[in-house]
């Protein structure tokens, strides 16, 4: 454990301690002076005890220790200080590309240590960041500044969601022309790139280089979505170094950030990449918005999933507006639409419109001969990879065309009709080698009419499902990159009850899986950024100089992620633009010549011992005072015990500040109206709550006459609640129900006019369960959904919906009202994650994107916040306004 001193010269004062010894020994503590009238009577008595008073030895020793502590403390001792070798200014190089996001806290800490050390030694510092800055400019040239300035600049360094550019960094160094020799400290991301060696060589020319890089096991990993024919979500995971086996967990999350599915795999030693599939039901798959590596927050460890991967869009060709008439139950498309609803997004309309979208499956119901134009469009679409499902019917039977997997015999076959000897027929089991393999066929399917295929040699190959007599019921054949499928009967009840069975949706799911999605044919518009990833893989509203992506086309080279095109979601359709595919080569940087390297992890932070020394000196000083009092006989025994106890309690309960802070928060809360949130213990949620309430308080100050202080976090079991008008309570999954004492306080709070906003923050998915667990023992009144005429919808703004970061989940308040509480509901319960919608950073920019999104939703969320606070502050004051029409009505009479 290396111990070092900032100002070692001060230690020379220790030489003065012997003199102090002598001085302390000679000068005893001053006696107490007492006025005593009968002093004459004392006259002769004292003389027999006359002796030289000396300071007791232990007191002298204690004072010597005290003096030594002060001297050593003043010399500012540091434990494990990272020695920044003396000599010359510092050049601190920070790789702030995507790969730095992993282990960012460690990097940050090391960077702080370096700069603090530089500050102590007052050495000028130049700071160089190697990733292109977010403003789109070139890599800024480093220049020497004071350590304080450099520290402030370093505060602003965050990892960017794009790679570093060491070539540009070399240019920046050239432009800066820093005077060698420098000490170069390099916080590297550990990845190799073609310009890395040049960069290292350039650094070496400036002076000795020390590089801190992550160890192999902690190097950044990269996630890329992989195409998959089976319709499962698949991702490939790459890592720069392959020396150690490593287990990675892939997690699929929906828009609200909830985990939908999870899978793990182990990358064996020697393997640099692995592919991993996430099998999940289609309904869940439709909700997946992003894949991420567990335990790694970086833009590279996140793959955004857009419609192309996630939700297949199925087009229903409806040229005549069928099914909207009097008898929807007779319409084929009605059944198709119902079957598809849970599986995919259904678009219904004219073929022209449909083909402008990105579709994976088109269902063409029975209709009279295809027009020349349509035929051409559809065929072209199939050849590009689409799956066309055609449904048979009388019109097709009369008038077969060419866009079919098999040639049809003209006319149809009627089973079980009045003039037929046969009965409606059941289905055979599905053939094993065809797409429907394994689907169970219900016994009650009856087909009463079908179209018949022309028997040709390969009919058997093209038959995907058969009736019990062996005639094909579903046939399919590839055409171009796509597939043509024909159901030889109708889905509607006219020819069969296939559309009513559970088999049909299962068949459709297989077909959807078969399809790969076909981008729209024409080249579209440029895609404006909608939401972008930040360096830690979080979606944030677009900022900086992010530009629109050129529309995707097979010919153009894909854009490179960078300040102009950060990874994220682009366009109205939220097309995902991920970092993964853009990084072809992910390798670890090997040893660089002339660069000494230290591992980033395992570095212990420097410990500043000065406060400890001074605190010890202070304690000794107090002990000294007590001792002096005792020696002078001024200390009564009880007072001594009390003083000792107080001192001991100070020592034992060191976080003095906590107690002080608690008192402070109460005091502050009393002195100013402020909102409060319940501290959950989950740092991120608490931070969001705080930022959310802070944003809301600021908003309310701007828009209303209410002035709110900074919000505070409270612990219901400890802090007094009654001083807060509104308590925001984010409900987390593993929240422990409050204990009996806390429960009593919360109930008391609600009974006496307090209001609690419970927010399950999940859009209402599994909120009830955890909410019930949390609040089961609380006196929650009977609840009712907030209606348009509730005060909460009127208290400041007129609101129709009460969205937060998510929208749509109902909001509950007390049913009716409690007159003793002025009819104000003591609880507001919802799931829309309001704090995240209100949360803004210190510059007032929102921290989280709202879903589905848009400024309108954020504004609505803000307005809900204003209404809520007004409701909490003014109670049912505005309820009169709700009754205004009735009052006016009465006045008229």
């Amino acid at each position, binding site marked *: 454990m290396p111990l070092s001193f900032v100002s070692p010269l001060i230690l020379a004062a220790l030489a003065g301690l012997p003199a102090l010894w002598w001085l302390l020994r000679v000068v005893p503590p001053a*006696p107490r*002076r007492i*006025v005593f*009238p009968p002093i*004459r*009577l*004392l006259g002769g008595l004292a003389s027999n005890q006359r002796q030289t008073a000396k300071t007791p030895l232990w007191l002298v020793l204690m004072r010597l220790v005290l003096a030594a502590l002060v001297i050593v403390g003043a010399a500012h001792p540091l434990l494990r200080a990272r020695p920044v070798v003396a000599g010359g200014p510092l050049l601190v190089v920070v790789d702030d590309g995507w790969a730095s996001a992993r282990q960012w806290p460690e990097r940050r800490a090391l960077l702080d240590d370096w700069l603090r050390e530089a500050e102590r030694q007052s050495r000028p510092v130049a700071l160089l960041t190697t990733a292109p800055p977010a403003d789109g400019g070139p890599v800024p040239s480093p220049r020497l500044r004071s350590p304080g300035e450099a520290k402030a600049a370093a505060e602003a360094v965050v990892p960017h969601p794009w790679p570093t550019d060491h070539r540009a960094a070399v240019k920046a160094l050239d432009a800066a022309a820093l005077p060698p020799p420098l000490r170069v400290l390099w916080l590297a991301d550990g990845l190799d790139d073609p310009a890395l060696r040049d960069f290292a060589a350039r650094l070496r020319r400036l002076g000795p280089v020390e590089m801190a890089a992550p160890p192999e096991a902690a190097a950044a990993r990269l996630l890329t979505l992989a195409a998959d024919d089976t319709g499962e979500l698949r991702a490939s995971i790459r890592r720069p170094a392959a020396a150690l086996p490593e287990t990675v967990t892939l997690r699929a999350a929906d828009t609200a950030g909830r985990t939908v599915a999870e899978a793990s795999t182990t990358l064996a030693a020697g393997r640099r990449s692995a592919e991993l599939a996430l099998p999940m039901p289609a309904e869940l798959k439709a909700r997946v918005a992003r894949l991420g590596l567990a335990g790694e927050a970086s833009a590279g460890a996140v793959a955004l999933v857009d419609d192309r991967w996630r939700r297949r869009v199925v087009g229903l060709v409806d040229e005549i507006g069928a099914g909207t008439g009097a008898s929807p139950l007779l319409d084929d498309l009605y059944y198709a639409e119902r079957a598809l609803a849970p599986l995919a997004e259904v678009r219904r309309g004219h073929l022209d419109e449909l083909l402008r979208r990105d579709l994976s499956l088109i269902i063409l119901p029975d209709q009279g001969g295809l027009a020349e134009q349509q035929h051409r469009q559809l065929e072209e679409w199939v050849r590009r990879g689409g799956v066309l499902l055609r449904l048979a019917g009388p019109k097709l039977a009369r008038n077969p065309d060419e866009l079919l997997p098999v040639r049809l015999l003209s006319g149809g076959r009627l089973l079980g009709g009045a003039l037929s000897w046969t009965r409606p027929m059941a289905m055979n089991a599905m053939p094993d080698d065809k797409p429907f393999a394994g689907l169970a066929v219900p016994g009650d399917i009856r087909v009463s009419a079908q179209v018949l295929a022309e028997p040709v040699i390969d009919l058997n190959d093209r038959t995907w499902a058969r009736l019990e007599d062996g005639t094909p019921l579903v046939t399919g054949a590839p055409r171009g990159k796509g597939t043509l499928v024909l159901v030889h009967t109708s889905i509607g009840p006219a020819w069969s009850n296939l559309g009513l069975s559970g088999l049909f949706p299962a068949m459709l799911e297989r077909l959807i899986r078969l399809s790969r999605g076909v981008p729209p044919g024409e080249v579209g518009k440029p895609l404006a950024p909608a939401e972008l990833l930040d360096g830690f893989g979080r979606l944030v509203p677009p900022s900086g100089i992010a530009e629109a992506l050129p529309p995707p086309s097979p010919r153009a080279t894909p854009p490179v992620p960078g300040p102009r095109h950060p990874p994220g979601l682009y366009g109205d359709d939220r097309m995902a633009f991920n970092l993964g595919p853009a990084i072809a080569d992910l390798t670890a940087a090997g040893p660089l010549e002339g660069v000494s390297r230290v591992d980033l992890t395992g570095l212990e932070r420097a410990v500043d011992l000065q406060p400890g020394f001074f605190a010890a000196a202070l304690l000794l000083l107090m002990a000294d005072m007590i001792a002096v009092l005792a020696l002078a006989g001024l200390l009564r025994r009880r007072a001594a015990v009390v003083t000792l106890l107080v001192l001991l309690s100070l020592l034992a309960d060191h976080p003095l500040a906590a107690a002080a802070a608690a008192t402070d928060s109460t005091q502050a809360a009393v002195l100013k109206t402020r909102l409060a949130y319940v501290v959950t213990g989950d740092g991120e949620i608490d931070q969001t709550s705080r930022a959310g309430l802070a944003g809301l308080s600021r908003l309310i100050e701007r828009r209303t006459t209410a002035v709110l202080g900074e919000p505070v976090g409270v612990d219901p079991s400890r802090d007094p609640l009654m001083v807060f008008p509104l308590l925001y309570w984010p409900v987390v999954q593993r929240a422990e129900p409050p204990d009996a004492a806390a429960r009593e306080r919360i109930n008391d709070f609600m009974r006496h006019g307090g209001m609690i906003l419970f927010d399950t923050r999940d859009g209402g998915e599994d909120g009830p369960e955890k909410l019930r667990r949390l609040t089961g023992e609380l006196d929650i009144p009977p609840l009712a959904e907030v209606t348009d005429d509730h005060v909460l919808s009127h208290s400041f703004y007129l609101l129709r919906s009460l969205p937060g970061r998510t929208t749509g989940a109902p909001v509950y308040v007390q049913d009716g009202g409690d007159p003793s509480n002025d009819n104000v509901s003591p609880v507001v319960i919802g799931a829309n994650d309001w704090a995240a919608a209100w949360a803004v950073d210190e510059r007032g920019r929102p921290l989280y994107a709202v879903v589905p999104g848009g400024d309108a939703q954020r504004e609505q969320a803000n307005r809900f916040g204003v209404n809520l606070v007004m409701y909490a502050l003014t109670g049912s004051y505005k309820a009169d306004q709700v009754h205004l029409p009735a009052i006016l009505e009465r006045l008229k009479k």
Partner: protein
Amino acid sequence: MTTVDAIRLQTQAAALAAPLPPLLAEAERVAATVLQGVHGRRRTGAGDSFWQFRRYQPGDPASAIDWRQSAKCDPLFVRESEWAAAQSVWLWADPSPSMRWSADPARPSKFHRACLLALAAASLLLRGGERVARLGEAPAPGLGRGVLPRLAAGFLGAAPTPDVLPDSVLPRHGSLLLLSDFLLDLAVVDLAVRRWAGAGVRGHLVQILDPAEESLPYQGRVRFAGLEGEDDLLVPEASSLRDAYGRRMADHQAGLAAIAGAAGWSFCRHHTHLPPTAALTAVYSMLAGQ
């Protein structure tokens, strides 16, 4: 005299008189508790209060006959009143700096207690028809309740001179009440007492002490300081002196008692933490206890 001067004089007078009414009231209150148990001379003599009726005897002046009583029965009765011989008592409350001290701010100073006892005794004596004066005061002993405020002003206004006993010459058969801590050389006290006793004065010594002066409750390293110009005394451990000091104090008190006894005077002690009533009873019985 300008108006401004008059106002200033009045203000000063009011400030000076401010402690008097409380002290007087307190003295009266203390005296009232004592008076109940004490009676007059219990013999016939010149006085105002009724004592007894007795048969008329030849030689009695006719004007002494109580006609109302005589009319009730045959013999003639003469109304006799109780003897109320006026005695002159001189009072002295030691005004020295050492008296103006109290070890505990919650306790009154010895001087305050001395003044209180002196005034209470004066009040009692005045009610009993005696003449009272302050030792060292020029006018002859006064009679009647108008004397009391003057006495009080005299006691409180006395200059804090160092410990010396006054050497006023008193007429024979006067009584003298000395209230002091008597922290003097016994020889000085002896001399003064002898002188007065030789002049036929009856005296009473009341030693008023703070309890701290009796018990020396201090400990640790202490520098003791006197109030009357004595040298400081540094004591390494005050508590070790306690026993020796206690013996000295007892010796001193015994010496005082011996001086008083030799002159036929009475002596008693009073501690300021005790209520003044007990001391007043003792003082009064000393004064009345011929």
